[in-house]
Structure formats: C-alpha cells, structure tokens
C-alpha cells in the first residue's frame, strides 16, 4: 500500500517536471538563427512645407500579423502584411485616424523583384496592379508617423510569418513578456537631401544645309523624361513609365544617326533628342530646359514628340495635344501618324486637353512646350492624364509589366512618321525602316536597355550629378548624336526629400521575460539544493539545521 503510494508520488513528481519543461519550451520556440532581409523604405518628402510619407526610419519592435487579437495595443508592434492579405480599408483607417502603430512591413510577391523576373497570370496581374496602385496612392499622399517598409517574400520571412500567425492565433501577441520575434532596423534618422539636382541630357543631329541657304534649318524634337517616383524609391524602376520612352528614344536616335551619317541620306531637318529629368514634379526639368533655349532655336522647332509609357499596349496608342485638333499643324502630325499606323495594323487616337495656365499641375510633357508656344504632342498608351505622383514608376512597374514587341512597334510608328515628314514622303507607301534591312529596329538593343532600366531605380533627388546611370545615358546619346550637352538644374523649391531608402532588417527570435524569470527561479533552487546537499554530505544534517536556527539568546542563560 505504502509502496503504491510512493510510486504514484514519484510519477506525479515526474509529470510536474515534464510539465515545467514543456512550459519552458513553450515560452521560446526552437532556436532558429536570426534572418536578415533587404527592406526598402517608403518615400519621405515635404511639399510646400507639408510632410508626407513615412517620417521615421529606425525600427526596434515586436512583430505581429494581421490576425492579432482585436483591441490589442499596437503602439510598440510592427504589423507584417503580405500583399495577398492586404485590407486597404484597415490600413486607411489606421493612417487617417492616426492610431498608434509601431511600424508597417508590406511583403511583396517574389515575382515583382528584380532577380526573379518571372511571369504572372494576366488576371492576377490586373488584380495586383489595382491593389498596389491603391496602396501606393494611399501611402504617398498621407503623413505616417511610423516607419513603413517594403520587402520581398522569401522562405525565411514566410516561415517567420507563419510562426507569428500561430502565436497570434493562440491569443498572445508578441510583447516583452511573451516572447516572439523582434524586428530591428538600425539606421540613423533620415536627413534632408541637400539641393537635389535634375540633369537634362540633349543630343543634336544636324541636318543637311544646302549651299546658299542662309536660314536656319527647321528642327524636330523627340523628348522623353527618364526619372521616376514611387512609393518605394529604391524599387522605383519604372520599366514602362518611362523606361519604354527612354529605350524608344535611344533606338530612334540610333536609326536616324545611321541615316544622317551619310550626307546623301541626311534630311533637311535638325533632330533634337532630349532626355529630361524632373518628370513627376510637373515636368520641372523640361520647363527649365526649354527656358534655357535660345529664342531662335525655340522658334525653329517645327514640332516636338514626347514619349511617355509606350511599353504595355496592345492595339491602340494615343496622341495627346493641347492645341485644338483643327489646328493645321496638329492635323498634319496626326495624319502622318495615322497613315503609318494603318500600315502597321494599329490604331492611333487623338485626345485634346486644354491647358489651364493658372493651374501649376502639368500632366503631360507636351504642355511645357505648348506654354512656350511650341507645337508638341505626347504619344502614350494611357488614355487619360495621370494624377500627381501616379504612374511614374510604381511598385508593379517592373520588367514583366513591359512588352518588347509593343516598344518595337512604337519605335517603328514614330520613326516612319518622322522620316516621311523629313524626306517628304507623306502619304506614300514607302517603308524606310523595313525589317531585315540595315535600318531595321534592333530588338536586342531594346531588350538590353530595357533590362538595364528595369534594374536601376531613378528617383531624381537620389541621383547625384555624376551618377553612373546618367553618365551612361549621356555616353549612349553621344554615340548617336553629333553633339551632346548636359544641363544641371536644381529641383523646384517646393519639394524636399529625405534620404535612407534602403536598409537591412534583422529578425531576432527573443525569449520572454517570463522565461528569464522562470530560469532564474530554477537556477536559484538548483543552487540552494546543491548547497544543502553539500552541507549535509560534508558537515552533517545538524549543521544545516543550525544554519537556520537563531543562536540561543543570552537571556535564557542568565535566567
């Protein structure tokens, strides 16, 4: 009977030890190594003194997922939100109501990263594009008082997120007392970018001046803006807006330089190629570039064609103008383009948008030309003008969003139309840049430049004066044009930008305070047990008891 009792006691003590062990293990998971991920910060800028974007960069908080228990305090927590679980209304609520939040980390699908370059289903593309556009619009135009970062999903982060979701589902969001994951980004406070420069590059191809012709030759300008702006400046590569425009301009320059290299085929028009910066900021760079022109040069420009987003269209392109369509010059340009378009089996439509001089918003590049009384038009796949800071290199505008064939057709359209105007072959069915000829459009050239552009973020305030990419553009244009000039200007004063666009995130698995306290308890009891054991074995039990008994008081002795 006694033996049975003793054995059950023993079993119970074993159970309690095992339970204690389980509690210890439950407070902390298995010891994974810390993960380190590249993260990209949301843009931070001031416009006319008002702050926008994420105002902080350093991060040192616990992580939680969207399945946190309702009513939990998130002021010292970072929410990790993968794009497929994004609920825009939830984010909008937090931002507009300025609820306290430790930080936001958005996880973008891997297909959007530079290195992946994979293919997505078409309907998925549309859904993701809409979602990302809405998210960017919300983030770029709000003032957010916590750090906001973007990262690409990979295996490490996925396992961490799954773990966090499991913990959250159990009802304990990660705080200092319950362990979990801690996200640390150790960067300094973001500083203002001092005097951001915008660099305009222009290339000049001289036409053939006949002997005895004193007048200046007329000029045709082809312009594209090369810089971008997006929610994450380090990810803002703008393959379609406006990488497609840059690539098309370079290819057209190459084709015409081939034609103009031989005096027999040199046209009677000068060609001016312009790669302008400051596009997202109401085409500030184009305005400064035009203002720097000589009055005579400006008057000699017959017309200008601006290229904006011609990389992801199927059958229809638009020519946007600000002069009324009844204008003779506009009619001529449009007819030229339409004729070529018919032959190339695509449609070209004409859109007219009046300029409002008092409104500082400049939606299309040609409007800057029109304000200085130069005939101009923009060729684009977009039917309506984009809003401020939209469609200028957003998160989904990567390599897989743009289509080489579309660019090739666009180049053919513009080159043929220009050539027919220059050489006086309007209306005639002559193919100057026919396929399989020396003057064919080179797909490899387009592809290689498109790949390069899809890996180079080009937000103007973060491009220094001698940025290697700008130098590369200048060198490329110099290969094709007779003369290349570079103009450095300061970005318009109402914009101020802050640096710190890229960082490294460290994910640590931390033990909770409860675990440490428990461990302290266990160790303390272990040491006490050890002490008692040693005293008993070496000095005897009496010694141990005597340690706790107070020495007999003197009073008893004297009494």
């Amino acid at each position, binding site marked *: 009977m006694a033996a049975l009792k003793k054995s059950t006691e023993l079993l119970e003590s074993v159970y309690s030890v095992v339970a204690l062990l389980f509690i210890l293990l439950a407070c902390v998971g298995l010891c994974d190594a810390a993960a380190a991920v590249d993260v990209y910060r949301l843009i931070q800028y001031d416009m006319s003194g008002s702050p926008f974007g994420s105002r902080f960069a350093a991060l040192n908080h616990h992580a939680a997922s969207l399945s946190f228990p309702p009513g939990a305090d998130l002021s010292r927590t970072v929410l990790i939100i993968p794009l497929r679980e994004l609920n825009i209304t939830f984010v909008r609520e937090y931002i507009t109501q300025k609820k306290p939040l430790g930080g936001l980390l958005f996880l973008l699908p891997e297909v959007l990263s530079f290195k992946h370059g994979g293919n997505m289903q078409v309907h998925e593309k549309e859904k993701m594009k809409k979602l990302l556009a809405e998210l960017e619009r919300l983030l770029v135009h709000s003032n957010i008082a916590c750090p906001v970062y973007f990262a690409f999903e990979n295996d490490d982060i996925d396992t961490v997120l799954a773990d966090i979701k499991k913990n959250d589902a159990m009802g304990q969001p990660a705080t200092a007392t319950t362990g979990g994951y801690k996200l640390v980004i150790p960067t300094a406070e973001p500083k203002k970018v001092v005097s951001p420069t915008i660099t305009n590059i222009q290339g000049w191809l001289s036409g053939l001046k006949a002997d005895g012709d004193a007048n200046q030759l007329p000029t045709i300008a082809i312009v594209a803006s090369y810089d971008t702006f997006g929610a994450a400046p380090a990810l803002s590569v703008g393959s379609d807006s406006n990488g497609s425009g840059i690539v098309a301009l370079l290819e057209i320059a190459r084709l015409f330089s081939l034609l103009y290299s031989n005096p027999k085929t040199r046209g009677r028009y000068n060609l001016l190629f312009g790669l302008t910066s400051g596009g997202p900021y109401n085409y500030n760079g184009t305005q400064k570039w035009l203002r720097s022109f000589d009055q005579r040069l400006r008057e000699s420009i017959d017309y200008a064609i601006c290229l904006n987003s011609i990389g992801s269209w199927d059958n229809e392109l638009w020519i946007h103008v600000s002069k009324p369509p009844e204008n003779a010059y506009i009619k001529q340009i449009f007819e030229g383009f339409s004729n070529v378009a018919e032959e190339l089996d695509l449609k070209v439509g004409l859109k007219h948008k009046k300029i409002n001089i008092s409104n500082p918003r400049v939606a299309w590049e040609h409007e800057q030309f029109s304000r200085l009384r130069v005939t101009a038009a923009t060729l684009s796949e977009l039917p309506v003008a984009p809003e401020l800071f939209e469609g200028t290199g957003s998160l989904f505008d990567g390599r897989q969003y743009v289509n080489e064939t579309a660019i090739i057709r666009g180049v053919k359209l513009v080159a043929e139309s220009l050539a027919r105007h220059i050489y006086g072959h309007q209306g005639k069915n002559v193919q100057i840049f026919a396929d399989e000829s020396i003057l064919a459009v080179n797909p490899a050239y387009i592809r290689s430049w498109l790949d390069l552009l899809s890996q180079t973020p080009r937000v103007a305030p973060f491009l220094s004066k001698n940025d290697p990419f700008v130098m590369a553009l200048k060198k490329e244009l110099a290969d094709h044009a007779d003369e290349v000039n570079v103009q450095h200007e300061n970005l318009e004063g109402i914009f101020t930008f802050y640096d710190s666009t890229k960082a490294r995130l460290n994910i*640590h698995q*931390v033990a909770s305070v409860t675990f440490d306290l428990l461990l302290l308890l266990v160790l303390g009891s*272990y040491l006490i047990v*050890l002490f008692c054991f040693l005293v008993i074995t*070496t000095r005897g039990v009496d010694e141990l008891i005597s340690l706790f008994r107070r020495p007999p008081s003197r009073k008893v002795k004297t009494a």
Partner: protein
Amino acid sequence: MTMFHFFNCAILTFGPHAVYYSATPLSEYDTLGTSVKAAVVYLGTALVKLVCLATFLQVSENDGFDPYQELLKALIGFIDVAGLYFALTQLTHRNISQNHKFQAVGLGWAFADSVLHRLAPLWVGARGLEFTWDYILQGLEANANLVLSISLAALASLIWLRKNKPKTLIPIIYACAGIVATMPSITSYLRRGLGWYFPKVVGFELFTSLVMAFISWQLFSACQRPSA
C-alpha cells in the same frame, strides 16, 4: 532582458563553484589561498598547452575526426595532469588535511577553466537579442567540469600524496585517473567523430562526471580505512 539572460547563465556557470566553497568545510579552514594558487597553475599549464598545440598541431579544413590529431591533442592534454601534479605536490600549502587539499585544488582548477573558456563567449554572446540554448548548455558543461576536476584531483592526490594504498585498488585508481584525464578527447570524438549534438554531449558529460565522482569517492573512502 538580455543582461538578465547573461546573469542567469553566469550564475549557472560560476555559481556552483562559490556554493561548493561556502557549503563544504573549505570555507572554515580558509583554503582560498590554495584555490587561487591552483588557478594560477592552471593558467600556466594552459599557456604551455597553447604553445605546444600551435607548434605541433595542423589545422584541418573540415570538421571531421582525425585520429592522429586527436592522439596528439590527448598527449598534450597530459600536460594538464602534470600541472595538477605540480599544484598538488610542489606548492607549499599551509597545514590543511589532504582531504581538503584536493578539494581546494580541484575547485581552483575548475574555476580557472570555466573563467578562461566560458566567460568571454558568455559576455559576447549571451547579451545579444537572439536567444539560443547554447549558453545554458555551456553552463551545464561547466558544472560537469567542476565535478570532473574535483574527482581528478582526488584520484591524483591518491596517486601521489597517499603512500599506503591497498594493493588491489592501485590499478583501478590509475585506470579511473586515465579516463578522467582523457575526457576532453572523448567528448571531442563524440562531437566530431560520431556527430552528436551539443545537448547530447553535455548530457553524457554530466552522467559520466557523476559516475566518476561516485567511483572516486568510493576509492577515496576505501583508502581512508587503515589498510588491513
């Protein structure tokens, strides 16, 4: 938080030494000087071992078990034993009984070993944010090492300090001393040759240290009895 963890691991690693000193009669007889001298001797032997290792050992690229290198390491490990001999016999101790002498020497030896081998990794690693079980396991290893050092000191004192030993027990004493002295080689074989994980190795060390301590205790008390 993380200083807390460092504090926890520190008391696990160094606490038992302090507890041993205060719990046993060592503190009453004020044998601190002996322990300190033993610690200094350990420092000396560690330096000598370092020089020998640097001179004779080749650094292998892979982490496998090379029998020749391990043999060399074991031989150099016997310098440890020589150092212990020096500490036990040559240092002039005050008039303390042999019983306490080996305990004090063993304690000093183990404490110096813990400080030299475990304090630096603990300070650098346990204060970080990331939590691993490594430092707790290291503390347990330090405990096992303490027990082993004391049993080795006991066996060594039996070998060199006690003149009248029962004849039958002498080979057992030497065998046990040999096993305890080559413990480092055995654990490194387990870790590299058999590929055991750290927790398993620490468990093995704890188990063998307790077994060895029991055996050496029995041997010591057997030798205490007046020989028949």
